[in-house]
């Protein structure tokens, strides 16, 4: 009965917004299901179930043999999703009393069934399942669960359930294959810790604290090293005799999306760096990198138009030697020596920025307006590579945010704990409407930055100043000015305004300011890329 159980799990995960609630659902799955089904479910969630998948067209043809075309069309129009429409409309067949298939049975049969027999196999399963089970089956065989669970979250749940640290699960993960029998045996205390054989595993990253003005007293040229803070994504490159992997900051294995980096990892080392789109050595804006993120496969064309590289800044392992206990300066020397020796393709070193005093550093930070630079990193010269965010070792000192006074246009209810609050805000700026007047054009959405008190206030304001509703969204009177700060402005073809803001958040409510005095779109356009004046 495990496919229905798995379907029930997916159904709950899809509707559950809260991380803790998702963890609880996953722990319940591990505790309640037998081997090998729980491991197969885990693999399906972490994207490691390599199934020979069926095309959605096959499912569509199958349902056409069982349903009236007009009724199917009306239903599909209403539901809007093919897999869900098929799952719901699939007619029960009188006399079918086969038990629903098991999860392991489905996976095994998909491996061995000849392609020509696949439709009949699928139809038989669909007949034996209820609507929830049918949807899970269709999602499974067409390859796309989309239940909002990252591999990292699934591993965290497994670690919680086993009473282990997630780092311990990460270290073991790469040596294990579905259905992870040895991993579950270890987690339940029934078996030994599975051996690792030189496989690439994620090592916990060292993280930085945001630097506040008083912290500057601790900084000095003799004790600290400065680097640019690059606006890409943090990655860990792990190349071991047993394999290679590229990990994101959140420990997701993102190797598949960046085959050219994997190909360049022709060495044995674990490195820390920033993944960037680079053209002729120049770093492209973050928006370019975004085109390459969250892709399972990447086309040759995409690799050519959006070439990626890694700017390295730390070294955790040189061959089998663990460098993490060494001070920063020593690791840096090892990194530079290794780089000079190895000369890996698609990689360079993040330069150290010499500085004579804190005042000089402040000037350097203020002068940095290049789009690819978020600010400065300040690292203690004598610090080890410490997992997590340890105060006083690494600092991030972002350049001062940019700010605008915008007008609140729409508000949307949040999820989970915020579901009774209007907490997501679309704001706009003025521009000429082409008919001699002014119009507001939306430029971004902010859902953070405010205090709890401010949220209560805005929520009430939204409810009292609603002009129309669209489902969970309310349009409001265009009278409330909010001060929005953001890290950068970029050109964007996807937004009506032609600009996109990086990490916008609400700094202040400007109830003192009339909406007509809010900023114009031109103000943001002047801030795009390097166009900004120094602040």
């Amino acid at each position, binding site marked *: 009965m495990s496919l229905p159980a798995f379907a029930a799990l997916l159904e709950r995960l899809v509707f559950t917004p809260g991380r803790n609630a998702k963890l609880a*659902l996953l722990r319940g799955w591990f505790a309640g299901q037998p081997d090998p089904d729980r491991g197969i479910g885990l693999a399906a969630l972490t994207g490691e179930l390599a199934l020979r998948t069926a095309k959605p067209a096959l499912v569509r043809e199958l349902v056409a043999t069982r349903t009236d075309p*007009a009724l199917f069309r009306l239903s599909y129009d*209403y*539901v809007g999703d093919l897999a869900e429409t098929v799952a*719901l409309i699939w007619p029960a067949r009188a006399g079918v009393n086969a038990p629903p298939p098991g999860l392991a049975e489905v996976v095994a049969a998909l491996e061995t069934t000849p392609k020509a027999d696949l439709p009949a196999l699928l139809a038989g399963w669909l007949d034996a399942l209820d609507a929830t089970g049918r949807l899970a089956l269709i999602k499974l065989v067409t390859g796309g669960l989309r239940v909002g669970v990252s591999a990292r979250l699934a591993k965290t749940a497994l670690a919680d359930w086993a009473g282990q640290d997630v780092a311990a699960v990460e270290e073991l993960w790469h040596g294990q294959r579905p259905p992870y029998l040895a991993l579950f045996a270890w987690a339940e205390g029934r078996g030994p810790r599975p051996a690792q054989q030189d496989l690439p595993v994620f090592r916990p990253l060292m993280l930085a604290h945001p630097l506040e003005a008083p912290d500057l007293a601790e900084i000095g040229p003799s004790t600290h090293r400065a680097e640019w803070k690059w606006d890409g994504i943090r990655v860990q490159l792990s190349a071991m005799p047993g394999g290679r992997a590229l990990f994101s900051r959140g420990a997701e294995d993102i190797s598949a999306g960046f085959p050219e980096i994997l190909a360049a990892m022709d060495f044995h080392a674990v490195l820390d760096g920033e993944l960037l789109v680079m053209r002729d050595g120049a770093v492209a804006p973050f928006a370019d990198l975004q085109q390459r993120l969250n892709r399972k496969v990447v086309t040759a064309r995409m690799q050519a138009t959006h070439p990626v590289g890694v700017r390295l800044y730390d070294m955790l392992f040189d061959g089998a030697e663990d460098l993490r206990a060494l001070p920063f300066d020593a690791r840096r020397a090892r990194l530079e020596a290794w780089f000079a020796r190895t000369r890996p393709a698609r990689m360079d070193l993040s330069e150290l920025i010499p500085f004579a005093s804190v005042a000089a550093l402040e000037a350097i930070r203020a002068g940095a307006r290049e789009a690819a630079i978020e600010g400065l990193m300040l690292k203690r010269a004598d610090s080890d590579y410490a997992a997590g965010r340890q105060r006083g070792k690494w600092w991030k000192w972002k350049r001062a945010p940019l700010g605008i006074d915008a007008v609140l246009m729409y508000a949307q209810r949040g999820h989970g704990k915020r*579901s*009774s609050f209007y907490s997501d805000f679309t704001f706009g700026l003025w521009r000429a409407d082409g008919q001699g007047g002014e119009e507001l054009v939306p430029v971004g959405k902010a859902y953070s930055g405010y205090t709890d008190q401010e949220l209560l206030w805005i929520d009430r304001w939204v409810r009292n100043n609603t002009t129309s509703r669209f489902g969970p969204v309310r349009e409001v009177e265009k009278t409330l000015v909010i001060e929005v700060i953001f890290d950068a402005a970029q050109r964007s073809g996807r937004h009506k305004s032609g600009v996109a803001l990086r990490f916008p958040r609400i700094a202040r409510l400007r109830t003192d300011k009339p909406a007509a005095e809010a900023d114009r779109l031109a103000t943001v356009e002047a801030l795009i890329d390097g166009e900004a004046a120094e602040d």
Partner: protein
Amino acid sequence: MPHPETWMRVTPQGLYCAPGDFFIDPARPVARAIVTHGHSDHARPDHGAVLASAETLAIMRTRMGEGRAGREQQALRPGEAVTQNSVGIRLVPAGHVLGSCQVVLDWQGSRIVVSGDYKRRADPTCAPFEPVVCDVFVTEATFALPVFRHPPAEAEITRLLDSLRLFPDRAHLVGVYALGKAQRLIALLRQAGWDRPIYLHGALLALCELYEGLGVRLGPLAPVPSPAKRGGGGLLAGEIVLAPPSAEATAWVRRLAEPVVCAASGWMRVRQRAKARGVELPLIVSDHADWDELLETVAAVQAPEVWVTHGRDDALVHALGLRGVRGRALHLLGRGEEEEDAAPLPAEAAPAAETAG
């Protein structure tokens, strides 16, 4: 035998029986009305004479106040017949909510059954639907798409109870309509062995009391308490709380312990509907016939012609055509409104809603 179209027609007020000179479920005040059940899209205030089941009349008085539930009220028992200007009138249970009835009309050998809203599943809070053979069957089509096949309600209740075990530190807030769904859900929970008090939003209290008064046992019920201090929360962890749909969008909900937002409705069958409402645990429990039940019912009443009042008439009329039954969409205005997702209650109105019916 006169064709039913000659003695029953659609008017702006609703279905009108000309020889009897009365309306069925009229949308505006009329002199003489027959009301199938108490939902606000069928039972309107301020008619002259109202004929309905005793339960429906009681529900109308509770919701509208004594003065507005019809100047003259006439209760008809199931099976009892009256004649109005030569039109025979009977009420037969429709299984939708307490008191809900089909209206069986006979005139000169021709029979029309106006079913109101109905369902075919067992419901501990009301009498079951009885098919009556007729010449024209007037049906709803709320869930008339083949994607709507309601699972057994008992299985949905099990999912709710499973969730309470999984999240004992959270309140479970179930969005339900005040008339029918709330009481059916309570009765189903009692059948499943849930004997703890069930907590009610103020907007549900009056009708639950009325059900009890009419002999439907609901077990221990309690109003949702107010927080100890303004803005306080954390109440009713591990308990079941029933509230009108969309109460989770109001400030009222902030008193509850990290609520799991559930909704009990046939619409929950479609993910996008549930997602758009921010529902965390959709429960597919409906008081309407699903697709299969609509078609079974039409077959059972053996009517050569079926009139569809509201809902997905396109799909139903098409499917009837495939079965050799003539289907006709009536396009009645204002139907399905109580049962559609109600607009969110404004936060400021929440305290008032606690006393309103």
